[in-house]
């Protein structure tokens, strides 16, 4: 039993952290709100250079054969930075699906580019039709009628939806399920997509943990600085206890996301329950932290000139996506009761 990351994993985390700190500033996120994706695109480009976007692909495909345990810390960092872009769909879903099910021509056309980070993938499973970050994708990977399709974005019919998190640029997608786009037939699509969904769920949980950490950092900085009644409001016990409770929820949610990543990487028998626990804790913790963060900020946090709202709204969206906390607790109930 050893619950810790390797130095290599932490080094990779630090690399990504520095990139995001330097390039994925709140202004970049704000620009995506306003429909300007250039800043975010260049962050994506720098991440691609580090090789992380294709990290889960095999060396043979130009990847690093890395696992969910390697990527979970990176998703946490992208949450911290509120990175706008389809990283979960590309890194955790698209690349592995392409490698597992791409035809020869699809490999040539898509896989290498996706691994290199030159191709943004958005994905929808059976019964789903909404994708996020629909301003910038290159290809849609979709599960339809127990088949998997890989459709260039210009052949996808997309109708825009407005997310409460304007950076997410939602769209409902449909396409003609034609043969040339169909992926290989000799694979178990159900199994592939079940795995893909779990990967997306854990990646999203990690982002929620990162979002929580950022909101808490913003709050701590604010309450140390903001003075009322002649002292920092952070000296008020009510503020201290709110933020202490926020920290506790976040710190107990975090290992659950790591644990789920490990269970995915090792195909542990408990993986279903572990994934659901990760999402349930990360969702509830992030919503709780958002609530405390806004309350200790007061009116300033209630404006869109201040950055906090972009993180809160990302939390509201992600906490409800890939199954909310109640949904996952209900799944767990079927296993343990």
């Amino acid at each position: 039993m050893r619950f810790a990351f390797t130095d290599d994993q932490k080094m990779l985390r630090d690399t990504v952290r520095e990139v995001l700190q330097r390039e994925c500033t709140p202004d970049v996120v704000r620009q995506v709100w306003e429909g300007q994706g250039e800043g975010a695109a260049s962050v994506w480009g720098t991440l691609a250079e580090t090789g992380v976007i294709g990290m889960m692909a095999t060396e043979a495909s130009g990847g690093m054969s890395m696992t969910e345990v390697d990527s979970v810390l990176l998703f946490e960092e992208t949450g911290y930075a509120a990175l706008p872009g389809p990283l979960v769909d590309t890194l955790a879903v698209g690349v592995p699906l392409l490698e597992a099910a791409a035809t020869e021509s699809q490999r040539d056309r898509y896989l290498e580019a996706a691994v290199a980070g030159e191709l943004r993938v958005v994905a929808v499973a059976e019964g789903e039709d909404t994708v996020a970050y629909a301003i910038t994708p290159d290809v849609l990977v979709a599960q339809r009628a127990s088949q998997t399709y890989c459709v260039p974005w210009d052949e996808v019919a997309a109708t825009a939806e407005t997310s409460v998190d304007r950076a997410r640029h939602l769209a409902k997608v449909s396409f003609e399920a034609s043969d040339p786009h169909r992926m290989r037939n000799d694979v178990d699509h159900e199994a592939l997509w079940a795995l893909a969904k779990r990967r997306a769920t854990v990646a999203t949980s990690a982002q929620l943990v990162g979002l929580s950490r950022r909101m808490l950092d913003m709050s701590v900085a604010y309450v140390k600085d903001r003075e009322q009644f002649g002292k920092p409001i952070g000296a008020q016990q009510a503020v201290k206890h709110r933020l202490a409770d926020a920290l506790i929820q976040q710190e107990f949610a975090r290992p659950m996301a790591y644990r789920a990543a490990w269970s995915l990487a090792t195909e542990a028998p408990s993986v279903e329950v572990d994934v659901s626990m990760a999402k349930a804790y990360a969702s509830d913790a992030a919503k709780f932290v958002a609530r405390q963060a806004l309350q200790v900020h007061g009116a300033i946090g209630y404006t869109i000139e201040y950055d906090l709202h972009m993180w809160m709204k990302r939390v509201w969206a992600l906490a409800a996506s890939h199954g909310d906390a109640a949904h996952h607790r209900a799944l767990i109930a079927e296993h343990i009761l």
Partner: protein
Amino acid sequence: MDLNFTESERAFRNECRGWLVANVPQGVLPSGDTRDGFARHLEWENRLFDARWAAVSWPREYGGREATLVEWLIFEEEYYRAGAPSRVTQNGIFLLAPTLFEFGTDEQKERILRPMARGDVTWGQAWSEPNAGSDLASLKSTARRVDGGWRLTGQKTWSTRAAFCDMAYGLFRTDPGETRHRGLTYFMFPLKGDGVTVRGVDRLDGDEGFAEIFLEDLFVPDADVIGEVDQGWRVAMQTTSSERGLSLRSPGRFMATADRLIDLFGRSEGADPTLRDQVVRTWMDAQAYRWFTFETVTRMMDGDSIGADSSMNKVFWSDMDVRTHETALALIGEALEFDEGSPSAVDGGHWMKGFQFSLAGPIYAGTNEIQRNIIAERVLGLPRK
């Protein structure tokens, strides 16, 4: 104790319901916290006033009906039940008017009240300053005595709808030798013209609901001072307690929201069973708030003042409002992300908008932390330090 409504109270309810059914605009108006929505709402305020429903508890001479507090609560229940537009005249009618009735001169009441209630002159509050929020007494804005009046200088913020309003009211230090609660005076001042700049600030929900007000030597005549010079704190406390208290949040609003939530629940198949209980709690809380309010109002009609009890009222409704909207969003599930105007938004996305609006409740009009301090110190008598 008689918890039935009297003959005349029922008659009042029927008259009011009848008028609202006939007059409430079809469909939802654009938000009153946007520039054009504000204008649309003012048309409605005109009609409301002309039918003498704008301020039912006011004396007839100012366009009211001299309604009792109970009748006022009945009006509010019917108003929200009918889905009538939100009141953009609220900051005038519910916050400034009570102060004028208590401290204003006859000339001020004559000049200000009717146009205020009709929406011909619109009012925003100007309490907070960048460094004076919960700690209002630390405000820095000043008023300098000049011939025939005063010159106001300073910055106010979080001023609701001030970007669209004509006038505002707030506190300014008239005695530079004094600090904290002393030496402050309550002024009314224009939001247009030389010496005043108003900058709209967008709120969480995207509406331009806030504004910053920059004042530089703005002239205000003596006629626009409310109460005595240097006595502004006492005057203001009357208003802020009514801001916290009954006048801002009557039960009708929450009863209507609870009914809408029950309707949403009815449309949500396979909703999590725990949510069923949450919906019931919401409905119960609205009921509890209603009866708590009728009890309070009876005490007020018997001549008691509610004082610090209004802090309990404020904490209860603001927390209830957040829980209610959290429950609605949980029922909507993943689709909660579809915002106002999104094709797939459930109920036009107004639950998410309402949720964001509800998050302001525990913050404004004195944060719930401040309220709990007040309850502990003034109601329970715990030591301040």
